[in-house]
């Protein structure tokens, strides 16, 4: 038993390094997508202290809108632009209808309201586009679909072009986002609001504008994630489960930290794949990916209650 848990997995890893690399690569790709969703969460959490549960469903909604518009005969890139428009309208509506009347309520009430938004969007998406599975318009958007086969260590490593594109686009998006947050006036306003609401308001930053802005950015991120994940797994409401995956990513990285979201996402993506392949399937009957991330985050939190990069929690009476 000891050997099975502590020795055999490592032996397996070194016996087939090409397979290990394949596992790591796939973990990395899903990790990047987790990180993207978590980024959407972090932006909204920082600027409004709202734990936005609806991020996952925004991914589905964006992907559905895109596919639905294209099915109505709109050209692919035009439907991307239109979907962005829809996400903007959504951001404005959420800010106006849901958030503004709830300013200053306890965190859990706002959290609940985002679950209400989730249900509403599920219903709306199903009403307009139907509940069945759809195929992402990968070809029309010009996303490459082939694969490259490498042969490291005399083995076999298959890199899907789609995955490579996802990694590149996600990285570019993160860089663009960081540049936006650090070097533009709007970005600085978002960060200021994250640091201190009162102070930000007193120097003339508009809460409402920033909230619309962060929800819109979260919508853009949702669209990119939706395209990437939809191309890998089809567009359906089952995509919503990846939203749950973003929660441990956030907790692990720390709720306020953008670095944390990225590092946490990559860590969880890679580690859960490794655990599933080398420990989960041989020893535990598989499918451990449903809970591994949560248990990992829980263990890390026991040592660092604010997550790896979160703001230190200071409590005063």
């Amino acid at each position, binding site marked *: 038993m000891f050997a099975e848990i502590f020795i055999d997995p490592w032996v397996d890893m070194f016996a087939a390094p090409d397979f290990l690399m394949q596992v790591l690569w796939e973990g990395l790709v899903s990790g990047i997508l987790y990180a993207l969703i978590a980024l959407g969460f972090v932006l909204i959490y920082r600027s409004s202290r709202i734990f936005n549960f609806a991020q996952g469903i925004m991914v589905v909604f964006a992907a559905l809108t895109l596919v639905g518009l294209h099915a109505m005969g709109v050209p692919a890139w035009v439907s991307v632009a239109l979907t962005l428009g829809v996400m903007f309208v959504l951001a404005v509506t959420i800010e106006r209808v849901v958030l503004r009347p709830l300013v200053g*309520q306890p965190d*859990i009430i706002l959290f609940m309201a985002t679950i209400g*938004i989730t249900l509403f*969007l599920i219903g709306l998406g199903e009403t307009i586009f139907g509940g069945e599975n759809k195929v992402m318009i990968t070809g029309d958007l010009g996303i490459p679909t082939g694969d490259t086969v490498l042969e490291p260590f005399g083995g076999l490593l298959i890199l899907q072009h789609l995955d490579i594109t996802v990694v590149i686009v996600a990285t570019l998006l993160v860089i663009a986002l960081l540049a936006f947050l650090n070097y533009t006036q709007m970005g600085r306003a978002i960060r200021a609001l994250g640091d201190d609401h009162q102070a930000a308001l007193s120097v003339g930053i508009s809460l409402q504008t920033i909230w619309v802005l962060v929800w819109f950015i979260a919508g853009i991120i949702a669209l990119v994630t939706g395209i990437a994940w939809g191309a890998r797994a089809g567009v359906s409401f089952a995509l919503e489960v990846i939203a749950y995956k973003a929660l441990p990513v956030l907790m692990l990285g720390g709720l306020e930290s953008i670095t944390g979201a990225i590092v946490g996402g990559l860590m969880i993506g890679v580690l859960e794949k490794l655990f599933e392949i080398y420990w989960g399937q041989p020893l535990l009957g598989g499918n*451990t990916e*449903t809970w591994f991330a949560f248990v990992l985050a829980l263990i890390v939190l026991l040592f660092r209650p604010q997550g790896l990069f979160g703001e230190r929690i200071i409590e005063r009476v």
Partner: protein
Amino acid sequence: MLYRTAGQFKTSYTADQALFPVRQDAVLLGIVLLLVWVVFPLTASEFAFQTLLIPILIYALAAMGLNILTGFAGQLSLGTGAFMGVGAYACYKMVTIFPELNPIVAILLSGIFSAGIGVAFGIPSLRIKGFYLAIATLAAQFFLVWLFEKWAWLYNYNASGAIQVPNLDMFGLYVSGPQAESVTEYYIVLAIVTLLTVVCINLTRGNLGRTWKATRDMDIAAELIGINLMKSKLTAFAVSSYVVGVAGALYVFMWKGAAEPNVFDIPLSFQVLFIAIIGGLGSIMGNYLGAILIVGLPVVLGTAADTRIFEMSALAGLLWLAGILAVAFLFWVARNLWGVAAALGFGAAMLLYGYAQTQGFRADSALVEHINTMIVGALIIFFLIIEPHGLNQLWRLIREKLIIWPFPH
């Protein structure tokens, strides 16, 4: 006027701290008890038992368990579904290992197992707080559901992987399983729910409840005034998980009849959390109001889509109208014009829909279900906006206004 308190004098501290300091409250509760214990069982149809009465009670019980943890002790939990599952599986193992065990005893004992698991997953709460704590309960949620699926001993190595409730009898009367009658199941659920509600009301009013509330309001301050945080938080997890576990056992044994592991997945947790929050965190009665709304509303909307409103019997139509007008009136008494508008708007929409049906309009059932989801989501947001503290607070406001009605002050 209806709630006139004039002439009800309190001459001792005991009278002042009584459960029902106002006589009308006690009378109202008496009427409700009469309804649920006598009138409903005598008049309800099979459909009403299975879609309204039994599930509302069970969901209310689960929400009460969650409310003790989240509303009274301030520890956010997103793992209610899994703890319900622990209760259900524990009960299933007990009745299959000891077939002669009294089913009610088995149901009450099954809560002890979920209490144990709840305490185990509650230990991190001593160090992790707020939303970060949600991760501990989410870990429980996903890990336990996975365990229900993979640990074949739990479901007696069934090929289906589901637990199937056997016929259980008590003194010659089937109380659970395919042969049990709905009325029997209803009375058992009602008895257990009533018992646990009384226990919970008194726990939350007593010493333990006060330590929970102090922990909720600010745990460091509570520690400073001498409350043992570990004891306070872990007892909250234990009591809460016990109640939730019993609700889970009832859910499978008295209502569903069979359950696969994914029944206990996260949507169930969220549904219970909705009930607790819409009902009002930190209240007992709110859980019932929340359950009536969240469980009852989709059923009402669904039946309204199936049956033609304009072809209902005159009595049913009048009840509909009276219900909507009563809700609008209560909102009006509470000076909540949004509420009045929403109630009347809802009534008008139903009438319009009924009229469209007489003109030959038929919505297909999938569409109705999707629109139902939308309406439920919108209603959650709506209720949070008009009263973030839940239906319980809304009732409290209405009651306060009723005392002075028809005068404004």
